């Protein structure tokens, strides 16, 4: 069954353990700046919002890539960057309207959430269940994606 990250900002305390776990899993360092998931802080509203790629159906990043360096993992549904193929042109970073593909200056490649191959470490590290990895149908993902259809030219052509 396809699963996806379910994010519930109301439960987030802003502890940043997800960022640490993500950076360690993917980059081997505890450096929130290298995390694929980000916690945004709203001081005035007293609110923390975890944010990462929803592995959207439109897959803007995948379609924008000129050299087939982003592929869908059929088991997890995640769009994965193939490091050996990525040339570092950054077109996907501007094409993704969710801002969830970033350029890594150190490696000269782009990075994005790949659901850790099916065992997302952010969810494992979250102490308050603000980030959980659950059955995709239950996540309300559709709500998060809804706006995309407004400007979508791609879905119908598939």
């Amino acid at each position, binding site marked *: 069954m396809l699963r996806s990250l379910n994010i519930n*900002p109301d439960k987030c305390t802003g502890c940043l353990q997800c960022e640490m776990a993500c950076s360690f899993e993917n980059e081997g360092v505890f450096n929130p700046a290298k995390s694929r998931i*980000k916690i*945004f802080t*709203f001081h005035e*509203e007293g*609110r923390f*919002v975890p*944010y990462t790629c929803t592995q959207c159906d439109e897959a*803007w990043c995948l*379609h*924008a890539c*000129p*050299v*087939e360096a982003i592929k869908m993992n059929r088991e997890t549904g995640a769009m994965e960057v193939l490091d050996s*193929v990525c*040339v*570092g*042109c*950054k*077109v996907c*970073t*501007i*094409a*993704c*309207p*969710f*801002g*969830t*593909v*970033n*350029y890594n*200056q150190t490696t*000269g490649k782009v990075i994005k959430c790949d659901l850790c191959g099916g065992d997302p470490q952010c969810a494992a590290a979250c102490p308050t269940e603000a980030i959980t990895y659950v059955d995709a149908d239950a996540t309300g993902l559709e709500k*998060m994606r809804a*706006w995309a259809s*407004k*400007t*979508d*030219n*791609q879905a*119908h*052509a*598939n």
Partner: protein
Amino acid sequence: MTYVIVGAGPAGVVAAETICKLDPDGQVVMVGDEPDPPYSRMAIPYLLINNIDEQGTYLRKDAEHFGKAIRHVHGFASSVDAEAKTLHLADGRKIDYEALLVATGSKPILPPVPGIDGERVTTCWTLEDARKITATLKPGASVVLIGAGFIGCIILEALVSSGANLAVVEMGDRMVPRMLNETSGELLKKWCQEKGVNVMTSAQVESIEHHPDKAVVKISGDRHVDAELVISAAGVRANADFLEGAAVELKNGAVAVDRHMCSSVPGIYAAGDAACGLDFSTGDYSVQAVQPTAVEHGRIAAANMVKHGSVLHQGCINMNVLDTIGLISVSYGQWQGVEGGDRTSLLDRDRFRYINLQFDEDTLIGANTLGVTQHIGILRGLIQGQFKLGKWKQRLMQNPMLIMEAYLAATQGA
């Protein structure tokens, strides 16, 4: 149904693949005039710096990809007989079509100066060009680059890292005038100068004299530079000459298309750099000549070639990302702003960081940045989502770096 696609770049390849999916029984012929497998010009800068080999530029890595459902024909399209629905190739071959896609991309414009056709002058457009440049570049070689536009800038790193002595001659008053405003264009110039590049703006090449051992490039203001290699990157124009005689209406030198990507001649469609298509931001028709637009055009054109009227183009947002010797610049939509709209910017000159946001009332309509890469795509989300930013507009006016927060507030009520 026989579909003929002229051009084997991203627009042509994506269109061909989309047609195969939508009409598995259709015959798809893709005509390309270069001997190589379909490749991405976007990848050439990375080939020049040796990050990848030529295969790394290929659009599709499976060597068998073309030749199955898609027939890849090598040839140069010379004319179209729209009445007979026949494409003529320069070598005399004819290909009949029921639907034709013009995905011929664009080609470099050579500035009209004496000596531009000399042997030491090359464009940087094709794999063949890249081979020529690679063969000439060596430490200490002197190179003159004509044009500091997108292509000129994106290959600067390769030229600098080869150890060449580099002079750049740009007609505009700043670098990349078509995607950067005065502040960011000037800052990019300073960045390049600090990397040892001799950048001349508001300057014109007047002539190129060819001698046995070098070329002498004469530049306005009584300047001259010796060069072993001259790279001309002075802009591009659509490949639409072969349509002369087919009564296909052109706009801005490219094929004028409607929202089905169809030209003025039924059955002839266009996509990518060769198409003058709907611009999301302006509601007008323009040639964007960028990869994401080419791909989007290709998909929409394909759908309408299979079933006319099936997909209506909503307009592409103009966007660009450029890496100039490690300094990354980005532009979106109406970065120049609109009359009556508000603008805000933040500049850190010493760290080469800049962000400029443009609003129409409380909606973001354009942006450009320098040295800002984190979550940069959210600018597209904000612009294309046309969100009313409410109180977040004021917050952005005060701190334009809060783009992610503004997006989350708009979409999740954060």
